[in-house]
């Protein structure tokens, strides 16, 4: 079962790469401006032995990890508070809805003024923009908690906080986890965007800026490919964690079909 899944995934990616290469070969896209898939792959392979890129990747990874951790630490409690206290949610909603659509291109100059450390800057941008999927999913998940499950604990005399932590949180957890997975992908994008827009000493975005200066499209897209692959890996890891934690959830739903 798991085997078949991996095989299919590999087949899917291989199919995509082949298709992209064929599109390039047929001249549908001018390969002077957009390198062929094979060229990008070669560039990506080159990066693997490029010590500079590896250092950059490590730096981006650290910012991503720290940013995501902090995001979860901030967004889950915030989502819980907003989901559990509708009056608070209503009061804060205009502010949240006002802030959400403000793009990172506008946030980053602001963050530059507020944070003098590049790591802090990137982490702050990640926390700002990656929190929303977790907050929103948490609010929606809390609404979906079976009222009888909550009443059961309330009837045993547990207070609202206990009910929140012992019933609402676990039963909302699978959907919150989906929010975290969305956020993890967003965080990759944000770290790199912050590096592209704000610069810095190290990072994949910095490497891309440098590659751009030499018109090395292959390296730019190779680096982007690695970012994508990192997205796949982090997602796989998060799914594996979810599978372990939420076995009960799969058993009750159609997921285990």
């Amino acid at each position: 079962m798991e085997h078949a899944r991996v095989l299919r995934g590999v087949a899917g990616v291989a199919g995509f790469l082949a298709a992209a290469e064929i599109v390039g070969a047929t001249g549908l896209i001018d390969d002077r401006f957009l390198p062929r898939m094979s060229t990008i792959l070669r560039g990506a392979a080159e990066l693997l032995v490029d010590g500079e890129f590896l250092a950059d990747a490590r730096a981006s990874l650290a910012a991503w990890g720290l940013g995501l951790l902090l995001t979860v630490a901030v967004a889950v409690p915030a989502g819980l508070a907003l989901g559990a206290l509708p009056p608070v949610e209503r009061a804060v909603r205009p502010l949240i809805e006002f802030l959400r659509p403000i793009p990172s291109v506008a946030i980053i100059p602001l963050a530059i003024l507020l944070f003098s450390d590049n790591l802090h800057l990137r982490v702050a941008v990640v926390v700002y923009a990656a929190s929303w999927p977790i907050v929103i999913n948490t609010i929606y998940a809390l609404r979906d908690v079976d009222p009888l499950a909550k009443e059961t604990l309330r009837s045993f005399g547990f207070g609202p906080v206990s009910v929140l932590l012992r019933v609402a949180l676990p039963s909302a957890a699978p959907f919150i986890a989906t929010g975290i997975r969305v956020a993890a992908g967003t965080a990759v994008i944000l770290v790199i965007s912050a590096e592209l827009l704000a610069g810095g000493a190290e990072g994949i975005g910095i490497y891309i800026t440098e590659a751009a200066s030499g018109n090395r499209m292959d390296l730019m897209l190779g680096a982007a490919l690695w970012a994508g692959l990192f997205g796949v890996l982090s997602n796989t890891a998060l799914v594996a964690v979810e599978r372990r934690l939420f076995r009960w959830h799969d058993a009750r739903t159609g997921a285990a079909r």
Partner: protein
Amino acid sequence: DTTSSSSSGNGLEKTTLKVGTIPVPDSAPLQVAINQGFFKAEGLEVQPEVVAGGAVATQKLLGGSLDLSLGAYVGTFLAQDKGAGKFKYVADSYGAAPGAFVIMVKKDSPIKTVADLKGKTIAVNVLNSVSQLTAEVQMKVAGVTATPDQFVEKNFPDMPAALENGQVDAIAGVEPFITVISKAGGRIIVDEMTGPTENLPIAGWFTTDATASKYPKAIAAFQRALGKAQAIVAKDRKIVEETLPKYTKIDAATAAVISLGSYPTSLSESRLQRVADLMKEYGYIKNDLDVKSMILPPPAS
């Protein structure tokens, strides 16, 4: 920590400087100074940091995450004029030279002369930058008036494709993209740095007034070290060719053939004033800019 002061003999207020650079030929002198150990000799440690452009550099200087940065004069003057902050140039870095800044069109474009650019879309790497200013100047020389909405912003690497696909009619390019577009059959319409813009200063090293007055000795040390490198670079193009592949992804072969700008050795008020005057003439700034107040001359050596 950038604020840690040192007890080293030369009494610098600050021994570690974070300096913003851009991976373009403009910042070659800084790399040379680092490679040659000129900063070390002054008791300075320079940590170069890539910035995406002049606007980011001014933000980072104001926010305190950088001490100094490379910055194009046009952008910085604009920022100063709009009151974004008060800045000081401490060293010149890059100036115009023939062939380094050109306007190009694609092979079969109907545009043959600068006058044909009237009303056409022109891609510049940053809006309201020196590229746009000099393009406007060249158009005026040719007798046509440029409008602000005919300029669009495109990153240099995206220019060849944008030109080819017809998203823009012309581009204001630099190396190594001039070479790329030429190879695709692109034509040079005009060298942006001729006539009124010949030898125009492009970019220099700058900081904020506050930083300049807070760390005068460290800045002076920076100026001395950079001055030595600038002198070498100005005389020897070879050393730039060797340095470029080390901090950009321009490979050695390309570095050997591309057209480079000039590396002026002194920060001349009269040269910078030309930039300010042009900006005023073309409506980039409203007031007369006191260029002198924006220059921190290097210490007499």
